[in-house]
């Protein structure tokens, strides 16, 4: 079985490619798969009919007890034969139904084949969750197949309806499945049927599962999707919506009936809804002028009939139900395929425009008549055999004291009368001759196209006589249900009540046909109160509109609105929790040391001023002041590493912020505030208050000793004296690895946002300044310099002569001369020139001593970055390129690679990820250093930080410079001068 499923999947995957050269000839080729499986299944019939069960099992999700388990018993085998047999015939039929130029033919063939495979999986699965997976897969494939002609509105609408309704049912069913599987303690369907779940769990679970079955089999109130699905190509209708997919619900009812037919919820749902559906479908079928829709409503009716019969829960009803299922698959597929041929030949499916087809397509008319007769239950056809069995089973169950059996019998008899009437209507409508209608012009169809309906019609006839051959299989399933086992399927049982009922059915059916006009008047007079389709449209429309309104309501304020909402939740939620809390700290100190209140006061003033300040750059500088206040707090409270890092970051931040803000207008406008100022201030005050309370409460809640005491021995073990650094590069190195990954992502993001095309590379270089030449005086004719100078000279409204004069000045920085003399400061250039290399040395020093003293990769990298910032500020963008002639991305990548590589390399030595190893050495100046994997890791951090700063400078600095030069002289140029000065 599993092999068959894999074969279906594999062939379906290659079908679209095969279809390109093959065209519609791909259909007979792919039809080989279901044909072969059908043949294999046939060989199993004798053994399975004798009671043997074929099982296959592959463990899947052990923790949830879900296995890919498959089980072929009598019922599964019957369904599998129907699915593969009719699947093969329909695929073959497609060969003549489509033309080579049909759009997306390959996809269609693949989907149809995949559908057959999925359906096979559905009827053979023994694990409820696997069954559910196939169940939903049929919904999705059905959606795709109905929407094959995606250009037509009705196809899209129908596909979406089918998907919405069947997945709604499927999800409901999933809940029921979970209830049953949990309550039953197994996911095996056979086990759940053998040991049924009873009580409330069983009732609720089964009710929910039945909702799934009802929606899939298009029973009232979900029946409307099936007629709509007729927008699909006819082979799809014949297969999915007559023979295969809709049978899934019937299959499920039949599968569960042996275990659950006794539950209180079972009969009302199955027989009540089944019977009602049978009548509604038949009633509406009798009104249709579109032959395909007539069949579709007929299918709805028949599905109700099938569910009603197989759900009865007796042995005879099961036998009758499975026979009816087989009969229905044969005649309904034949009839749909016939409609497809009629549609192709005549160009319409509306019988009011058809006339004389019977005479001109006698063979097709004969096949269709046989199939329709089987539908109506006319002897000697399988439909008759099945219907006789149904009436007998219902009479017997009713006589045994089952009240629902009488309900079922009445519904079946009334429904069968309607069936007779619409069967006649179909044959007469398709093939009759109407004097008032001009014979339609027929387009000749290949004779082979009638092959599939012919075979199916013949099967309806042959199986009726071959009941002894098919009965053992059906009886093996039926035997799993209670009841006497004397009844056998046969054409002739002698004079018995069922025969009389059949006669009554034919009689009334004939009356309905004869009094057609009167029936039509009666139908027109009855109000259309079964209008589930309209109800559905209204419901979906209401949901859509509601969702749109909800979205507009929730997403109303833009970013400030959302932030305000988030903060409000923070205030209410955490503030409320904090008020209810009663843990207060043991004591409160006013401050740590005399300087802290002074620093704190300065920070408060700066923060409040930043709120009031409308000028961008001034506000940023005030924020910077709070940052430097942090440096002091950290420095005074035993956190030198933090003080160092904060100082470096604060400086770089201010520079970078100013670099960008120089291009923006100086003042922030205040018009049309989303959150008005008083509200903003109130939210801010409340948030701050909650934060203060939380801080006090959180400290009070800390009763257990800090893990800081445990960190000391760990740091010693990590060969580190600086515990903070040991935490960063060793004890909590995973965290740091994550952090530097974020930095790499951020740097890439920054570059991507600013560089319009291509964010790779380093800062711009001076042309001709490669290798050794960099050390020599710059070539006077360097084009880039010249043009850059000229541009800047234009901006400054200076003469070329002055620019020439400027360029010949002595320079301290390599690219100093690319800056206009007015913006140059010799003093700054000299300082930067003198300090740059020492700064790099210091950064490396910090990197290596970080393990034992304040410093480390972060601080070292930031110092190096700051040195680059200085070079850029003093010498402009070309200077940055000369100072760091490397690709920023390469630095970032190398750093991350080094850190991650170090982390992973310990695996090679049989250690866990990030486990460190060392060797120690005496190094002059630096003292004793222990080089370990954690040091390599820190070097990675260092490189990432340098790369980040370089990337920020070359984008937010150099690239924005270039934009400014490109956009020409405007107010911006003055601001540049201001910033540089």
């Amino acid at each position, binding site marked *: 079985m599993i092999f068959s499923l894999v074969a279906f999947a594999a062939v379906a995957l290659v079908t679209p490619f095969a279809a390109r050269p093959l065209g519609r000839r791909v259909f007979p080729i792919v039809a080989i798969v279901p044909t072969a499986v059908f043949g294999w299944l046939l060989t199993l019939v004798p053994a399975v009919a004798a009671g043997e069960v074929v099982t296959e099992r592959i463990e899947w999700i052990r923790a949830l007890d879900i296995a890919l388990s498959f089980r072929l018993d009598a019922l599964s085998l019957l369904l599998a034969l129907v699915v593969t047999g009719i699947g093969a015939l329909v695929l073959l039929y497609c060969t003549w139904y489509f033309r080579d130029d049909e759009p997306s033919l390959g996809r269609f063939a693949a989907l149809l084949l995949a559908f057959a495979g999925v359906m096979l999986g559905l009827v053979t699965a023994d694990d409820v969750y696997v069954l559910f997976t196939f169940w939903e897969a049929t919904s999705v494939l059905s959606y795709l197949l109905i929407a094959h002609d995606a250009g037509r509105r009705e196809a899209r609408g129908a596909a979406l309806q089918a998907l919405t309704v069947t997945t709604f049912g499927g999800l409901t069913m999933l809940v029921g499945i979970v209830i049953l599987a949990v309550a039953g303690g197994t996911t095996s369907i056979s086990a759940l049927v053998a040991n049924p779940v009873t009580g409330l769990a069983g009732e609720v679970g089964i009710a929910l599962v039945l909702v799934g079955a009802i929606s899939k089999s298009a029973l009232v109130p979900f029946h409307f999707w099936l007629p709509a699905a007729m927008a699909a190509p006819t082979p799809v209708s014949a297969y999915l919506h007559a023979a295969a997919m809709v049978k899934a619900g019937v299959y499920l009812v039949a599968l569960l009936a042996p275990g659950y037919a006794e539950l209180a919820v079972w009969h009302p749902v199955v027989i009540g809804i089944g019977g009602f559906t049978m009548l509604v479908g038949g009633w509406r079928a009798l009104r249709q002028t579109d032959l395909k829709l007539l069949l579709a409503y007929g299918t709805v009716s028949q599905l109700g009939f099938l569910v009603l019969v197989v759900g009865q829960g007796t042995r005879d009803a099961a036998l009758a139900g499975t026979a009816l299922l087989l009969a229905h698959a044969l005649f309904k597929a034949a009839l749909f395929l016939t409609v497809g041929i009629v549609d192709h030949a005549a160009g319409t499916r509306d019988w009011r425009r058809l006339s004389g087809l019977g005479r001109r397509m006698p063979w097709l008319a004969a096949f269709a008549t046989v199939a329709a007769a089987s539908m109506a239950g006319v002897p000697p056809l399988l439909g008759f055999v099945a219907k006789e069995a149904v009436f007998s089973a219902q009479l017997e169950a009713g006589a045994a004291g089952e009240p629902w059996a009488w309900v079922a019998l009445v519904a079946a008899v009334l429904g069968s009368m309607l069936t007779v009437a619409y069967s006649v209507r179909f044959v007469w409508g398709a093939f009759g001759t109407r004097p008032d209608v001009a014979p339609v012009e027929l387009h000749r169809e290949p004779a082979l196209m009638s092959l599939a309906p012919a075979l199916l019609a013949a099967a309806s006839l042959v199986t009726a006589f071959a009941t002894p051959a098919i009965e053992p299989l059906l009886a093996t399933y039926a035997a799993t249900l209670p009841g006497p086992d004397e009844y056998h399927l046969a054409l002739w049982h002698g004079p018995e009540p069922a025969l009389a009922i059949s006669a009554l059915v034919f009689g009334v059916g004939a009356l309905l046909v004869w009094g057609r006009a009167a029936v039509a008047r009666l139908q027109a007079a009855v109000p259309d109160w079964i209008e589930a389709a*309209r109800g559905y449209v209204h419901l979906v429309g209401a949901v859509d509109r509601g969702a749109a309104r909800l979205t*507009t309501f929730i997403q109303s304020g833009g970013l400030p609105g959302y932030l305000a909402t988030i903060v409000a939740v923070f205030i209410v939620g955490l503030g409320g929790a904090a008020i209810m809390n009663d843990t207060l700290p043991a004591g409160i100190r006013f*401050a740590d040391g005399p300087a802290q209140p002074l620093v704190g006061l300065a920070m408060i003033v700066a923060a409040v001023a930043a709120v009031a300040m409308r000028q961008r750059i001034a506000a940023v500088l005030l924020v910077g002041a709070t940052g430097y206040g942090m440096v002091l707090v950290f420095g005074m409270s035993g956190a030198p590493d933090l003080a160092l890092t904060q100082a470096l970051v604060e400086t770089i931040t201010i520079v970078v912020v100013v670099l960008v803000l120089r291009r923006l207008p100086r003042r922030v406008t205040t018009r049309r505030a989303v959150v008005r100022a008083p509200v903003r201030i109130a939210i801010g005050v409340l948030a701050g208050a909650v934060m203060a309370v939380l*801080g006090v409460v959180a400290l009070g809640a800390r009763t257990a000793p800090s893990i800081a005491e445990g960190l000391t021995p760990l740091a010693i073990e990590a060969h580190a004296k600086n515990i903070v650094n040991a935490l960063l590069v060793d004890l909590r190195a995973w965290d740091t690895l994550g952090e530097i990954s974020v930095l790499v992502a951020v740097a890439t993001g920054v570059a991507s946002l600013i560089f319009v095309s291509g964010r790779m590379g380093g800062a711009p270089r001076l042309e001709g300044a490669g290798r050794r030449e960099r050390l020599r005086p710059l070539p006077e004719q360097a084009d880039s310099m010249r043009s850059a100078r000229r541009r800047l000279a234009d901006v400054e409204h200076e003469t070329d002569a002055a620019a020439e004069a400027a360029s010949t000045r002595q320079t301290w920085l390599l690219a100093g001369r690319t800056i206009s003399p007015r913006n140059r400061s010799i003093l700054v250039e000299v300082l930067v020139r003198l300090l740059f290399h020492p700064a790099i040395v210091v950064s490396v020093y910090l990197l290596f001593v970080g393990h034992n003293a304040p410093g480390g990769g972060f601080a070292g990298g930031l110092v190096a970055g700051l040195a680059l910032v200085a070079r850029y500020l003093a010498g402009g963008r070309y200077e940055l390129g000369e100072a760091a002639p490397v690709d920023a991305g390469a630095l970032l990548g190398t750093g991350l690679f080094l850190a991650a590589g170090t982390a992973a390399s310990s695996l090679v030595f049989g250690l866990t990820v990030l486990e460190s190893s060392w060797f120690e050495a005496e190094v002059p100046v630096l003292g004793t250093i222990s080089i370990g994997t954690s040091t390599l890791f820190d070097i990675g951090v260092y490189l990432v930080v340098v790369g980040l700063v370089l990337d920020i400078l070359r984008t937010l600095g150099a690239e924005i410079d270039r934009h400014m030069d490109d956009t020409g002289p405007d107010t911006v140029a003055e601001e540049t001068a201001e910033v540089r000065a």
Partner: protein
Amino acid sequence: MTASLTLVIVAAVLFGAGIAVMLERSLTRVLIGFLLVGNGVNLFMFTMGGEPGLAPILADGVDPEDLSDPLPQAFILTAIVINLGITAFMLALIYRSWWLAQLGEAGDLIGDEDEMVEDAEEAADLIRSSAADERAIQEVLDASDEDGGRA
């Protein structure tokens, strides 16, 4: 554990001020608010270390009992550097939106009403489209009914 009242108050003021600024419509103000909130939260974390002591460096002759709690310090150190990265990213966003808009001083404002109207119209179009699909199939069904779908 005891708290330093000064630090708690400073952290709360930085946080509150940051939130108040963040709620404005200018992205630059959002950035300024973000920086303030970042500092406030870092300070808040720092107070969780309890009473400060010596720098958490195991120099010779130092009693581990006297050291500051290193754990919040490690967290804050990471946070400071991440803040730098996020700041740069927000700056890039600010510059990019200004560059694209080129609308002078309205350039770095977050759009609201106009965009929402557009969104709502787009959603309404989608709903109309799917409703039209539904109507199309309903018409086909009605057309086949003998009295041509009275309802």
